[in-house]
């Protein structure tokens, strides 16, 4: 019998980014015993990296804005693949969630009349992003962290969850994991669980994501029997740093373009005018004069093409570089220096200024940045009920990046932070309701616990074997090269073979020393999640034989109207293999359809 501690709660939230914290706050406010379990220290989750802002149709800058326009922008930006009910709730509830942060101490930038200021971003018709300079994620996570602490929420930091276990009636009842400082095994028992583990970008070589983004929640849900949808829909952010190599992939906020920055190729041309797709032609400026007038007059001018949704901009940059019009380091130029004053840039974009100055030796108030696409976000994820955030497995809820549906095939910038707040809260309510109504116990088979522990500890017991870092590098190369921004059928099949061979190699991983704060071992226990998730992304990419949003197929370059009505659902079969099947999107009610068609002014 392995030595472990079992701790009992009503609700256990896995992940301490925006969604996890917001879910835990909800459960604590209800008076439930709730705990947060997270892989890093509290306050370090990936939310902290979000820069631009949180989208909410408060109408503080443009009174014409309202939830209907936000709903329309979100669905159209997601290339019609989004879940209508999630998009509706998100658009309707975001303003309240932002105001609530103020009541918890957040200090957003202000308009002249003392309201929360809102900035322009790609794909949003009006200036809609509540922000604090370009460090909005930090403000959001700190506010929620301080609120959670004020409510005396228990936080288990630096704790990795390996597996979710169910009781005899099939309800999720326990989470088995270990504490990284000591390596000690810990079992959390609870009446309901919320997965808020964020994204999967660690499996790509050039990525904005940290070491934590290994898709643990996606994998935990899959292994527990849940459905996941549209895992092929990945977002490559158009603007990552490209030089120096050591920071390649690091995020450059869309706020640079929202605040006046433009993209140019090596010939100095604003090339985005050549890439305006039909679906956005009516609302996008086709000449520089109109585009430049738009910043001050949104009503009589159309938006600059640099502010098309991210999938469009990322693909265009990719095409320019491929055509030989890139920068010396293989990106394009992002220029705000010639368009805005140094003072404005330093005030609106302080952390970008800092980041380029210190890491690249570039003064963005005087020279252009070099940028290129970088793996950023997964739109697909755990299939959830829009209203309750319940997954298809009883007792399991999900919110934030780990959940699928809201963003369809492409997420608009700023919709992630508001997603965390709206659905973090809803997951907290859903999980609390479930916990209060649950009648069955939380007993799980101790043999299952033993086998999870044995599997996790196996790399510590092998004398020799594969280095986990070698496997991670090979996986990153595979995903970067074969399942990147532009995909093709034969390469996807090759990727799947490569992932399958890595699955064999991972069985032979060996790490030195014991389990206490051992990054090699930590990575060894992350690899199974990464491989499961990469399998799903690749299988989804093979099945979706069209190009839509963040999923672009060289061999199927156009969107297919029929596939636009389909979610690709993945789940395990009885023998533990991933199955994929097409299912129809939920049918959007006519009154919401009308919003899309009329252009929703």
């Amino acid at each position, binding site marked *: 019998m392995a030595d472990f501690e079992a701790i009992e709660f009503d609700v256990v939230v896995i992940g301490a980014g925006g969604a996890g914290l917001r879910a835990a706050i909800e459960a604590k406010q209800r008076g439930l015993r709730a705990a947060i379990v997270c892989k890093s220290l509290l306050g*370090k989750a990936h939310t902290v990296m979000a820069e631009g802002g949180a989208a909410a149709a408060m109408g503080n800058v443009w009174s014409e804005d309202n939830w209907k326009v936000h709903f329309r922008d979100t669905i159209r930006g997601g290339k019609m693949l989004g879940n209508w009910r999630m998009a509706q709730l998100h658009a309707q509830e975001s303003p309240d969630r932002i*105001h609530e942060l103020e009541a918890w101490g957040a200090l*957003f930038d202000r308009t002249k009349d003392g309201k929360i200021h809102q900035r322009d971003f790609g794909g949003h018709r009006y200036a809609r992003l509540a922000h604090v300079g370009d*460090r909005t*994620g930090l403000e959001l996570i700190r506010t929620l962290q301080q*609120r959670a*602490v004020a409510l005396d929420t228990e936080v288990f930091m630096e704790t990795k969850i390996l597996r979710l276990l169910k009781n005899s009636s099939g309800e999720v009842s326990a989470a088995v994991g270990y504490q990284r400082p000591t390596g000690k095994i810990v079992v959390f028992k609870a009446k309901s669980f919320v997965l808020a583990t964020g994204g999967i970008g660690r499996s790509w070589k050039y990525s904005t994501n940290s070491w934590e983004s290994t898709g643990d929640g996606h994998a935990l849900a899959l292994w527990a029997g849940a459905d996941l949808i549209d895992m092929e829909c990945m977002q490559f952010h158009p603007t990552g740093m490209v*030089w120096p190599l050591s920071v390649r992939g690091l995020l450059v906020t869309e706020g640079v373009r929202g605040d006046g920055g433009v993209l140019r190729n090596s010939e100095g041309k604003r090339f985005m005018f050549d890439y305006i797709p039909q679906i956005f032609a009516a609302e996008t400026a086709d000449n520089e004069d109109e585009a430049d007038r738009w910043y001050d007059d949104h009503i009589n001018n159309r938006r600059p093409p640099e502010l098309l949704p991210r999938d469009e901009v990322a693909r265009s940059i990719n095409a320019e570089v491929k055509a030989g019009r890139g920068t010396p380091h293989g990106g394009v130029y992002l220029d705000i220096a010639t368009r805005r004053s140094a003072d404005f840039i330093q005030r609106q974009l302080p952390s970008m200024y800092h980041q380029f100055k210190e890491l690249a030796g570039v003064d963005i108030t005087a020279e252009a940045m070099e940028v290129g696409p970088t793996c950023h976000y997964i739109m697909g994820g755990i299939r959830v009920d829009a209203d309750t955030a319940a997954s298809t497995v009883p007792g399991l809820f999900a919110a934030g990046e780990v959940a699928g549906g809201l963003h369809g095939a492409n997420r608009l910038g700023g919709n992630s932070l508001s997603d965390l707040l709206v659905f973090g809260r809803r997951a907290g309510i859903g999980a609390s309701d479930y916990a209060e109504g649950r009648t069955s116990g939380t007993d799980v088979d101790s043999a299952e616990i033993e086998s999870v522990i044995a599997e996790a500890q196996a790399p510590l017991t092998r004398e020799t074997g594969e280095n986990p870092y070698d496997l991670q590098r090979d996986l990153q190369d595979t995903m970067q090269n074969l399942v990147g921004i532009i995909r093709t059928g034969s390469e996807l099949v090759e990727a799947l073979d490569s992932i399958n061979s890595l699955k064999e190699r991972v069985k032979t991983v060996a790490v030195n020393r014991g389990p206490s704060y051992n990054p*090699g071992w930590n990575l060894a226990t992350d690899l199974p999640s990464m491989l499961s998730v990469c399998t799903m992304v690749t299988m989804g990419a093979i099945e979706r034989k069209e190009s839509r949003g963040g999923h672009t197929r060289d061999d199927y370059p156009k969107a297919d109207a029929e596939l636009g009505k389909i979610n690709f659902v993945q789940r395990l079969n009885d023998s533990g293999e991933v199955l994929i099947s097409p299912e129809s999107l939920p049918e959007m009610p006519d009154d919401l359809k009308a919003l899309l068609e009329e252009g929703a002014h």
Partner: protein
Amino acid sequence: MAKVIMRIWRGDADGGEFQDFPTEVSEGEVVLDVVHRIQAEAAPDLACRWNCKAGKCGSCSAEINGLPHLMCMTRMDTIPTEEPVVITPMKTFPIIRDLVTDVSFNYEMARRLPPFAPKDPGPDGTYRMQQVDVDRGQEFRKCIECFMCQNICHVIRDHEENKAHYAGPRLFIRYMELESHPLDTNDRRELLRQEMGLGYCNITKCCTEVCPEHIKITDNAIIPLKERVVDSSYDPVAWLGRKILRRTKKTADEAAAYRRDPQRAKAGK
């Protein structure tokens, strides 16, 4: 490519020693890149914290040649490489392993802080604040909690026993942030004086010097806090004013009660 020896402290609470890793450095690399390469190639078990690798999360604090730095924001070409580059964990906090320390002191101090308690919103249910009124608080909210200011502060760096009654610079800017918050109603000044050790700071500005966010910790937070605490303790006019006028800020006892149980405290129990 420049050759360099990275001399990294390895060990745990029971002790340890330096281990040398000869390596080569490429253009633009930061210290964390080199540490990661050592992990991947030579020492997979080398313990260090990191997350964003962009100076935004404050996880990778360590001492490089004796001074606190974020490893992700310290370019190798700013460090002399003729001699070995010495990397040690933050000194003020207990060692867990290698470069990882137990920073729970900071989280405990954050839990002892009486929380934000806003006044009621306006008639439309939202708040109005002018930019000029939030500027000061926003400076402090840039803090990424790297805890390097706590680490360098000699009050706790050299005197472990002070940790029981000294919040430290990171928390002082948090107190000042709330003190200057246009909506907050809690008064934490007596608590700062009596239990949080504000008086121990003798404004040597070491904290300000190491802050990666360039927050003027001493000038904009600690000194104004000291002035406000003194005013509230010794100024007879202020004292009389508090007795006569309706208080908008809570006393230390009330604030502590609020922290323990906001619902009961609000009801005046």
